């Protein structure tokens, strides 16, 4: 018994040093040298300033201003925003505020819950309100599921190609671009299946929006 206690104490300390300090720090060192972009989160820059991560979804929205001209805040102290029609919009997010990449969460909405139906219906409503003026005839039944259902991470960087194609009409109209130009950009920033096989294709919203801004020469 005594022997076991001494060995256990030594073993847990040695393993903590080896597996808990040496191993992760060595991996960090190697990764920072071998894959510096990936290891630091694939940051994207505009004019030398980081604007986001390629892998992390973000909001493209404008603060709503109150009567006094100051940005309105919600009860948590986060600014109230409206989607910016000049940009492709990401999937619904369950985090607070949406696309919070430092406190990720699921919606945890169940399959048979009225709360789920209401959340989906309100996402559909918001989508139709934004897109219908540019895509007449768009109905709830034609809204792609990724635009109506919140993502798992809350920071899904992708939208489906169908979703992007619908939004393209709005972008082309608001930005005065030919639809074909916008569609070409969409296919350029579509991350296909890895090795053409694994996973599902998705359009990277941040990369696409940055490319649009470059196209327009504005930031």
């Amino acid at each position, binding site marked *: 018994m005594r*022997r*076991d206690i001494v060995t*256990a104490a030594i073993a*847990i300390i*040695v*393993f*903590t040093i080896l*597996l808990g*300090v040496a191993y992760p*720090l060595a*991996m*960090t060192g190697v990764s920072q040298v071998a*894959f510096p972009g990936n290891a*630091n*989160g694939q*940051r994207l820059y505009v004019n030398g300033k*980081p604007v*986001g*991560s390629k*892998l*992390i979804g973000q*909001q*493209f929205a404008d603060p709503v201003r109150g009567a006094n001209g100051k940005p309105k805040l919600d009860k948590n102290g986060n600014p109230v925003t409206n989607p910016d029609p000049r940009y492709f919009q990401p999937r619904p997010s369950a985090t*607070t505020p949406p696309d*919070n*990449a*430092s406190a*990720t*969460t699921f*919606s*945890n*909405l*169940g*399959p*048979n819950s*009225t709360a*789920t*139906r209401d959340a*989906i219906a309100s996402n*559909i409503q918001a989508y139709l309100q934004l897109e219908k003026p540019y895509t007449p005839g768009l109905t*709830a*039944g*034609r809204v*792609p*599921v990724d635009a109506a*259902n919140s993502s*798992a*991470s809350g920071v*899904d960087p*992708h939208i*489906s*190609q*169908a*979703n992007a194609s619908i939004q393209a009409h709005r972008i082309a109209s608001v930005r005065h671009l030919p639809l074909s130009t916008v569609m070409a950009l969409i296919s350029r920033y579509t*991350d296909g299946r*890895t090795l053409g096989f*694994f*996973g*599902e294709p998705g359009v990277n919203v*941040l990369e696409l929006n940055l490319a649009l801004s470059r196209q327009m020469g504005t930031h």
Partner: protein
Amino acid sequence: MTTQGWLQILLYVAVLVAITPLVGGYLARVYTGQPILLDHFLRGPERWLYRIFRVDPNRGQDWRAYARSLVVFSLAGWLVLYLILRTQDIHPFNPQNFHSATWDVTFNTASSFLTNTNWQYYGGETTLSYFSQMAGLTVQNFLSAGVGIVVAIALIRGITGRSERSLGNFWQDLVRTQLYVLGPLAIIGALVLVSQGAVQSVSHYLTVRGPTGLSQTIAVGPVASQEVIKELGTNGGGFFNTNSAMPFENPGGFSNFFEMLLVLAIPAGLTATYGRMVGSRRQGWAIFSAMAILFVVGVTVAYAAEAHGSPAQHAAGLHTSAFTGSTGGNLEGKEQRFGIPGSALFDTITTVTSAGAVNSAVESYTGLGGAVPFANLSASEVIFGGVGTGLYSMLLFVLLAVFIGGLMVGRTPEYLGKKIEAREIKLVSLGALITPLSALLATGLATSIKTGGRASPPISTPALIGKPQGFSETFYAYLSQANNNGSAFAGYSGYVQPSPGNIGAHGVTVPDLLGGFTMLFARYAPILFVLAIAGTLAGKKVSPAGLGTMRTDNPTFVVLLIGVILLVGALTFFPALLLGPIVQALTNHLY
């Protein structure tokens, strides 16, 4: 459902079948001391570890000594982990200056990672310092996996043993597991994950300003090094709150596939190890087949159910069939890059094993899709199961099936030449029933007291109280913790975070403690029974197989084994399952 989806699932199963003998063969060499390539590099460090641990690796331990070393080592691990988690204020590598969580949450977390459960009553990126994640959690990711594996190896030695005096040496098995198996695979795997886009950094969180001027803070951390062992050791505790859904943990289609392979590599491989160590590969394949059949049924049901969509989606007017450019299906709580097949497959894999990692929100699965993880857990984690735990739990069912088969043909049951007698069957029954019993008792207790179930303030969603979803959440919480799985219907919680991004969550004491004790009891009690069985089997004489000996390596036995597993699971859990997932699966009614 799409052809592409089925192809991805098919390829996964094919690759799994292909790597099983490779992994299994390697493990057999490691635990029987046959020469391997890594000897040249690791023999020195191995000897050095024995010397500073002050152990003689050649000194065999009987089951009591083996169990004593294991329990003492676990106790030491628990204390160190608890201390690390409670001292965040003085940690190095704490760039966000997180304080420690309260004692009750920490009790739950320490018990959770020690027992290979990785149930999480906290959000990683809002609660834990990098030092806690590395020196606390990553370490137990390795060690708890090692403990599971060595118990399985000890049981195999018991079954093949010629003397009850030795099941091997716990310290030697543990050291060899870390040095020759988990360590090297983790190093390679971590780099593969980083190459796919997983982050690995100890810097401060990054704050950026997006194109419309909104600022966003992006959590990073030493993720890949923990992610790889989280999968490989069937641990499952995410670095981030949303686990493998978070792109920094699981950046794309290939990383998803790779992580799924890491999860099943060792649990599947151990069946082949078993076959080799008992001297008949067919015995290993028979066990593998029973596991694989149940697994394939599960993933088929889950994929079909999720591709169909949920009643709530249909009620909201959504069309859920797939069409060009849209995955369709129940995409609530699922990521675009994985789609339905990549989510359903991942979910099935991590609930048949004790991994419990998720890349999609289990709570948002349809009734039938969500019934698959429920069923997997109700089968006591024997469908591949956790590293080591899966094999030893399955062997309990094998012994049970041999016993039942023996009764049917009216002969004294024998397994691999060893007579299975009253003492073994008593231990087997206790070992096999403890986990379901803990799950049901804890669920019953939790639902009957105010703070235990979903109704507990201040995390209540009144809409769910007394509804199937609310019951499912509570039931799943204790089923998952008792099976040391760790996945969750995550609406059920044991901590409160006053505002998002806030530091210093505080716990809800009852679920924290009830869950913590459930995990500890349902982990260590079966381990002790398994080691006791190994001990008694080791001393038994081997009688040669005769004409009347029931074969345990043919399809008939596989069917019998599956039958026993389903029977025990169904008899134990059917009433409880009826109240939750089955109700939801049978109706389109919204609650």
